């Protein structure tokens, strides 16, 4: 295991642990406004200080981790659940009209500026975490579809697939029983990268007010609140930013490390 993988996994696990613990315990109740105690710098009672409503920032970070992870995870899930079957189908029907349609459809989604469309979707359907998930998830679909097809095509040429066909297995069965297990590593690595992009996208959408709505805590939202306070209470802006930075860094390092560990030949796509 490489150093990247260890550091990345450790960072990621810290945030997953923070999010998990927040379900049963947080240092303070984030719906409890304590205005007289506002904008405290980090101290013994509030390890990371308090925000402009006197809420404990550590607790907000823990609850925010939950939002970030949930949004990014479901968005990756959408991308995988739709993209991988599409890619498998395109590979199984390689060269057919269906293959062409799927690939051109992918190109089309790639051509859209994702942020603009995400803003359009959330602006029209209302700002919420669910709409943010959909907006981010849509752009994960072509990533996985293209990658799956590209990885599946060479496998279809292999002898063991020929053997499976001789046995009379259908294309669908071959895709699920033989192709899918052979591309799992690749999907895990790309999933990690898309997960980190999802965290960034969720933060950006919440920052401009189109993601999770109050009282749901979100790192992007915390940064938006901190913007006007940055000169008098820099910690309110620095801490959520570092949370995003470390979580994304952890996932990226983990992705790179996993790639080297699982299969050095894998090349991931970064958009």
């Amino acid at each position, binding site marked *: 295991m490489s150093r990247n993988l260890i550091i990345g996994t450790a960072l990621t696990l810290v945030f997953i642990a923070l999010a998990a613990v927040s379900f049963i315990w947080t240092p303070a109740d984030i719906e409890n406004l304590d205005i007289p105690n506002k904008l405290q710098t980090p101290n013994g009672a509030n390890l990371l200080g308090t925000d402009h409503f006197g809420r404990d920032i550590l607790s907000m970070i823990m609850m925010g981790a939950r939002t970030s992870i949930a949004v990014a995870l479901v968005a990756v899930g959408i991308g995988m659940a739709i993209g991988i079957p599409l890619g498998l189908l395109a590979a199984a029907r390689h060269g057919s009209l269906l293959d062409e349609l799927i690939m*051109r459809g992918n*190109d*089309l989604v790639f*051509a*859209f*500026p*994702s*942020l*603009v*469309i995400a*803003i*359009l*979707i959330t*602006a*029209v359907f209302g700002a919420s975490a669910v709409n943010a998930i959909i907006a981010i998830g849509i752009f994960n679909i072509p990533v996985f579809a293209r990658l799956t097809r590209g990885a599946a095509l060479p496998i279809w040429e292999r002898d063991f697939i020929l053997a499976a066909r001789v046995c009379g297995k259908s294309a669908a069965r071959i895709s699920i029983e033989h192709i899918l297990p052979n591309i799992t590593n690749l999907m895990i690595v790309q999933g990690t990268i898309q997960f*980190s992009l999802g965290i*960034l996208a969720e*933060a*950006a959408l919440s*920052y*401009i007010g189109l993601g999770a709505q109050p009282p749901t805590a979100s790192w*992007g939202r915390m*940064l938006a609140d*901190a*913007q006007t306070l*940055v*000169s008098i209470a*820099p910690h309110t*802006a*620095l801490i*959520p*930013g570092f949370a*995003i*930075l*470390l979580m*994304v*860094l952890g996932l*990226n*390092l983990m992705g790179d490390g996993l790639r080297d560990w699982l299969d050095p030949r894998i090349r991931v796509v*970064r958009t």
Partner: protein
Amino acid sequence: MIRYVLGRLTSLIISLTIASIVIFAVIEVIPGDPAAFMLGVNARPDTIAALRAEMGLDQPLITRYLDWVTGLLRGDFGQSWTYKTPVADLISDRIWVSLPLAIYALILSTIIAFPAGIYAASRRGGAGDVTIMGATQLGVAIPNFWFAMILVLIFAINLRWFSAGGFPGWDNPFQALKSLTLPAIALALPQAAILARVMRSSLLDMLGEDFIRTARAKGLSRRQALWKHAVRNALIPVLTIIGLQFSFLLAGGIIIEQIFFLPGLGRLIFQSISARDLIVVESVVMLLVFTVIMVNFLVDLAYAAVDPRLRTKA
């Protein structure tokens, strides 16, 4: 080549058509009446009826779509409901902030990324390479809007070298560029990190090629082989990424413009969203999508002109 261009052109037209349908549809599927949506809950029925007629909502769907698209083609983007001016005027005022910002950021990103990527590749595995690659890992992970806030905190609030936001207009080009500097840096840094990584890996691929060994065998030093042969060939994939980044910078500017109170297209979109001025939102989004698809198309063509192998793969 002609076949390739025609093929790309066909898919360009299909992309633009589908894009326009999607954007039109998203605006159309708003639950209820767009006119009522735009005017809010307190609107009187006759006001809504007037706006409905003005927006042509009494026409069938297909007619409205065709009207909108043919209008766009003629440069007629419709009339803004809140500003009471043609949308085309609103856009042409603001494009002179958004476009220079994207170009400025692209130049910065290239200036940072090229030397960094080339240096890292030439010192592969060394301390310089490890440092630069570490820095790019950070650059990729930093949310650019947060980086923008940090820049404001350091350079505007503490050091007072730049103003924290606003745009004085192009009457004084120096002041105008100065006010775009922090936003451009915020936009450029994450892109520079990606570009430096692409530059490095593309150069490393080239350094492993036979023609580099031939050049070395011919008596060229490592340095000469790197600059004369490897860098030039490595630039091809890098240029593609630069093209893609331009469209990203234009769209990514939306958030950065918000932070620095720059009167560009991004702020126009947000103000229109909060004012429920859907005609403006629809047209600006279509314009951005058009620009992105167009830039991708031009990049494809440029790439094919440089690398003949690609023409046959179309």
